[in-house]
């Protein structure tokens, strides 16, 4: 218990370090004096470019890891991740369609038109999945397959649109699918915040039910867990968060798959602890990856999705090899 508390403390420290240090670091290191004294260019870079970007990374990474954890528990499948049910493919299809149609710079509720369209795609896929999940005859395993079918269908449509697109559009589409956190100002953060807060609140309220699901659906049901309700609420919370964040940062991979695994290994199986830990760990990890992405080949930027996989992949392999 004491080691668990210590590890959770370390995780909190890691998160705080990311929150404070990541906006100061970059191609130009900003001193604390410039941050507090208004008027300088550094002041503007810190408050209007770097800080919103780090906050977006913390929120998106946290939401991805928490959704991944909930899906892995719900489906009892270590390969489940926030995009398993096709939410990301739906969002990508929406984005690609908007690019194809030549979406301009119009905005709505803090989203670009590509963002609005991708959110609509994610919402459409989520509503279909939620509709399927509401049917009693649909087992959780069938739902997983239905999600994969949904993903494949969306991917095929994306390929079709890409095939029709010209070079510029095609490049924008590929670039969108790599994910990115390049934002100016707090519009995107403010758009994402309510989704993440609501989603996390729902997942946290289901912490006992999620713990019970670890014993298997049959046993959980016999202990009084209302399986269809829990399943529906988890899907609702996770797809709300993931749909909203994919619309602004694109389908950033890896965080939602790997971070929950690493934290389970460190902290055990209690979702009361794991859910906040995923918010901290996933957020700090994504902020760190973004920091790497915007510094290693500066002044150019590496897409954050490339960095998450390049940093996370080998690290996770190392964990698998060294863990008993």
């Amino acid at each position: 218990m004491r080691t668990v508390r210590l590890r959770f403390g370390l995780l909190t420290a890691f998160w705080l370090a990311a929150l404070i240090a990541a906006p100061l670091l970059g191609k130009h290191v900003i001193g604390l004096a410039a941050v507090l004294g208004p008027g300088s260019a550094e002041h503007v870079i810190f408050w209007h470019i770097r800080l919103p970007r780090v906050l977006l990374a913390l929120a998106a990474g946290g939401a991805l890891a928490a959704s991944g954890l909930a899906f892995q528990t719900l489906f009892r499948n270590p390969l489940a991740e926030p995009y398993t049910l096709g939410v990301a493919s739906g969002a990508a299809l929406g984005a690609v369609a908007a690019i194809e149609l030549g979406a301009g710079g119009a905005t709505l509720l803090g989203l670009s038109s590509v963002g609005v369209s991708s959110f609509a795609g994610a919402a459409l896929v989520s509503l279909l999945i939620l509709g399927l999940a509401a049917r009693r005859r649909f087992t959780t395993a069938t739902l997983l397959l239905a999600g994969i079918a949904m993903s494949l269908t969306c991917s095929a449509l994306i390929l079709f649109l890409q095939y029709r697109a010209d070079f510029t559009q095609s490049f924008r589409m590929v670039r969108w699918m790599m994910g990115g956190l390049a934002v100016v100002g707090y519009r995107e953060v403010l758009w994402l915040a309510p989704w993440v807060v609501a989603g996390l609140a729902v997942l946290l309220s289901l912490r006992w039910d999620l713990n019970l699901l670890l014993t298997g659906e049959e046993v959980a049901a016999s202990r009084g867990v209302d399986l269809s309700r829990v399943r529906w609420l988890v899907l609702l919370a996770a797809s709300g968060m993931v749909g909203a964040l994919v619309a602004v940062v694109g389908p950033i991979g890896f965080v939602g798959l790997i971070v929950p695994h690493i934290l389970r290994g460190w902290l055990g199986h209690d979702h009361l602890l794991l859910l906040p830990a995923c918010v901290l760990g996933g957020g700090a990890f994504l902020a760190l990856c973004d920091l790497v992405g915007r510094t290693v080949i500066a002044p150019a930027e590496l897409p954050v999705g490339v960095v998450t996989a390049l940093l996370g992949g080998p690290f996770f392999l190392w964990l698998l090899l060294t863990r008993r």
Partner: protein
Amino acid sequence: MALLRASALEWWVEARRIVGPVDLVIEPGECLGVIGPNGAGKTSLLRLMAGLERPSAGTVELDGRELARWPAKARARRIAYVPQLRPVAVPLTVRELLLSARYPYLSARQVAPAASDFEAVGQAAAQVGITALLERPLRELSGGERQTAYIAAALAQGGDLLVFDEPTTHLDAGNRRRVASLLLELRRQASHTLVVATHDLRFAGRLCDRLLALRDGRVVECAAPAEVLQPAILERLFGAPFKLWREGGETLPVLDLERSVRP
């Protein structure tokens, strides 16, 4: 008053009737055995009686109130169900498994289980003799130890009706005996009402007050073990020849390996 009452109970999967029609009354403190061939609908009947499936027709009542109308947690405070032992990867320790059985007593606002929950877990573990295993991960246990842990969890759940689906299947002789004596001890204490599906006819005869013989979802016979464990009934039930084996004061129906069944 009857503890559990099934009336004209049926369970259909698409156009196929898996169970029913079944009429059945279980009195408090009774031990009912359910026997029958593979695919007879034993597990389905047990799940219906435990409130884990909704009847397609007819009703199951607990204390005179339809089971489907019980809130899930209230039902779980009365009925515990031990499914057939399967090699499921459950990443918990024995203590965590037992604590999970206290779910029906937890409120959504609670941060940790209460002292009474830990107490119930400790008592249940002591009752089946697995106190020493509490901190061990489930996946490190033998099949018999795991089944014992699941039985302890059912006891920790604190209900008065315990439903066991083939508690001794997949276990070797030593572990079968261990689990069987555990259930016999529960029976002796008369603290619970038990429903046990099993293929072990001798065990069923020793444990139960009544045996329900199920075939194709229907009740072939439901009476005292001595009446049900007769070669004629068992032959009809399993489609295999049986003979009576006498040893000491005990009469046992056993499979007759020499004779083929009468057409």
